[in-house]
């Protein structure tokens, strides 16, 4: 995989490679997985005939039938619980929660049940389920269609949390998540479903097809969970990010001419501590960027890990750039979003110390 994911692709010859946006890549991962394993079922609100509000399950019901791809009542508790029961039967369910903001009614079933079955039954029962859910803001979704609740799940023992940043990664990571025998929360950054995001909301979206990371091979491939990738490499500092923010920080670095190691974590639990340490020990500076609210966000965990493990290599305090500790406001969405100004100022500060 190219480590310059969002670099503009060289002019590709038509027909030699397949370019997909993230929605198509996710759809492809589901299709490939369902074709290989009859025990995979998909359920969720509007995922069946309609193919999902973001189209990620388009065509799958038609291809695999209503007993493998079906709509559900508007009951996240019921969706997750049914998936747990199906997993106990021997199926491998891939439920969709329409927006991450809607996942809370299903939390008890995720935290107390799915995440704990293996432990409490001494591995007699497991929950091999992958909960897909679009997350993050930047689409004028207001406070109930914009949240980034990854830290809640990172805090739960027994859950893995995966967040792809490119179509290529989305497919490979989703296939890994589905094949994993533990429950996985798979958050899809919906702002970058159609193209990477520079952080300048007033500029038109550049479609994925213009970028190398949209080259998605046919068929089955996996990207291991727990392995980060370098979205960009440089010596001045390390930036830890995931999802949409990978692209925003990359755009800011290019604009400012900063040579950064941008580590796209891809999986936050288990997090790739080796890559983090390797990079921070090389650069001596670490900026952490996420869209979620700041207090007790996953950045706090990353900051603690870097400080505990790389303190004597640090030449400046670890910095965090995050969303504010407010609900995601509708009209002031871009005032909340950790955009180029917040990131740029943090870069200036950390590089001046």
């Amino acid at each position, binding site marked *: 995989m190219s480590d310059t994911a969002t670099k503009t692709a060289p002019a590709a010859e038509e027909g030699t490679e397949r370019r997909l946006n993230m929605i198509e890549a996710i759809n492809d991962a589901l299709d490939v997985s369902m074709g290989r394993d009859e025990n995979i079922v998909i359920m969720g609100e509007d995922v069946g005939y309609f193919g999902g509000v973001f189209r990620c399950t388009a065509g799958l019901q038609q291809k695999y039938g209503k007993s493998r791809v079906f709509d559900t009542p508007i009951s996240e508790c019921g969706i997750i619980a049914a998936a747990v029961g199906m997993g*106990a039967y021997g199926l491998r369910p891939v439920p969709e929660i329409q927006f991450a903001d809607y996942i809370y009614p299903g939390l008890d*079933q995720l935290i107390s049940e799915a995440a704990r079955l293996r432990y409490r039954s001494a591995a*007699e029962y497991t929950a091999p389920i992958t909960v897909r859910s679009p997350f993050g803001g930047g689409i004028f979704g207001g406070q109930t269609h914009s949240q980034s609740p990854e830290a809640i799940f990172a805090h739960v023992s027994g859950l893995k949390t995966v967040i792809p940043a490119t179509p290529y990664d989305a497919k490979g990571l989703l296939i890994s998540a589905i094949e994993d025998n533990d429950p996985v929360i798979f958050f899809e950054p919906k702002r970058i479903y159609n193209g990477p995001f520079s952080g300048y909301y007033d500029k038109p979206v550049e479609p994925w097809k213009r970028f190398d990371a949209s080259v998605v091979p046919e068929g089955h491939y996996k990207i291991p969970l727990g392995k980060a990738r370098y979205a960009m490499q440089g010596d001045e500092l390390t930036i830890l990010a995931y999802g949409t923010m990978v692209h925003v920080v990359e755009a800011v670095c290019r604009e400012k001419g900063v040579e950064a190691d941008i580590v796209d974590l891809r999986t936050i639990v288990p997090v790739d501590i080796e890559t983090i340490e390797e990079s921070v020990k090389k650069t001596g500076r670490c900026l952490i960027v996420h869209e979620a609210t700041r207090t007790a966000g996953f950045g706090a965990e990353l900051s603690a890990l870097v400080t505990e493990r790389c303190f004597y290599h640090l030449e400046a305090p670890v910095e965090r750039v995050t969303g504010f500790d407010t609900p995601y406001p509708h009209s002031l969405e871009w005032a909340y979003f950790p955009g180029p100004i917040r990131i740029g100022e943090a870069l200036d500060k950390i590089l001046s110390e």
Partner: protein
Amino acid sequence: MADRPQGTAKAGDNRPKLSLHVPEPKFRPGDAVDFSHIEVPEAGAQPRPDETTDPKDMLDFAHGLIRVLGEDNKAHGPWDPKLDPETLRTMLGHMAMTRAFDERMFRGQRQGKTSFYMKCTGEEATSVSASMALAADDMVFPSYRQQGILIQRGYPMIEMINQIYSNRGDKLKGRQLPIMYSSKEHSFFTISGNLATQTPQAVGWAMASAIKGDSRIAATWVGEGSTAEGDFHSACLFATVYNAPVILNVVNNQWAISSFSGFAGAERATFAARGVGYGIASLRVDGNDPLACYAAEQWAANRARANAGPTLIEFFSYRAEGHSTSDDPSGYRSAQERDEWPLGDPVMRLKNHLIEIGEWDEERQEKMDLEAAEYVKKTTKEAEENGILGHGLHHPFRTMFEDVFEELPWHLKEQAEQAIHERETKFPEGLPNGGKGA
């Protein structure tokens, strides 16, 4: 808007004052108990609809009470499952064994052998008899008071006790609170301490069975108090939406720790009636009548297996003992309730029925009870060789970090090393018990 003259009434002052209704049980400690308000229909009075009946054509069953065993100790009416005497004696045996087990384990907790126990005294029929009406490979998602299912399904009693003692023989590696059993081999789902979570999971399992064209069905048990959880409503909804082959058993034992069933809505409607709104076939059953419990579960199992849909069964029963070893019921309810309970005791009723039909006698009952007590005692002793809680004979230390995930990630490896270091610091001369429980 015009100013109001000083001293006049404020808007709404002439409306009646609202008042909050906080449910209160009829009897508190010391009260004389009179259960005459509970309607107990004649045994055999209820018709038995065909198993494929449309739920809207059997609404009365959510409000009546299906009973088979009458005051005369005879079986009456169309719900009589007409079990042969040998099966009845087996049922009685499982119920007596469950009761003997409860007695011994409760005492064990009081003797400090474990931290916690929960009896099912008075409710044995709701698990033993119901379970006998299912196939052995039908999947059950129990709550914490269905030990009778494991006993009926032949789960080795020593495994139950090992679990209760969290000892080195505990198959669950000492991770779960006592009585939170799990046995995949016996199609018995791992019990959660969180309430009602198992109900929509059972529906999911049943949906999976239907997706796969299997013939096995699922059954779940939940207390009436826990039907208040949203999960129970998700279970009802998913069950009806997908016509899932599942049985939702609600054991209404009147009490949720110290809260009477009124706090789950019993003052307004029966628990069986909850199924009506979802279009689920719903039966209200005398939960202290082992034959009625069997017959209702069998009806529901036939219905599910015929692809005719889910059933909600309310077993109307009474929790004769405390919620668990952690509460003293004399602090919140009248001690007379147990004796006055109008539906009697399930073990006595089945025993009297067998005697009535000439297939049993007091001597044999006495012998059976004695043998059950002896068996439990002997098995308890065997289990104690594996250790009791807190005496160091638990699972090897490293197992604490296993099964969080299929594979140990780096952060748990590091934490396991720290835990081992703490262990070695505490026991520099080696581990107690010769390291047997290390």
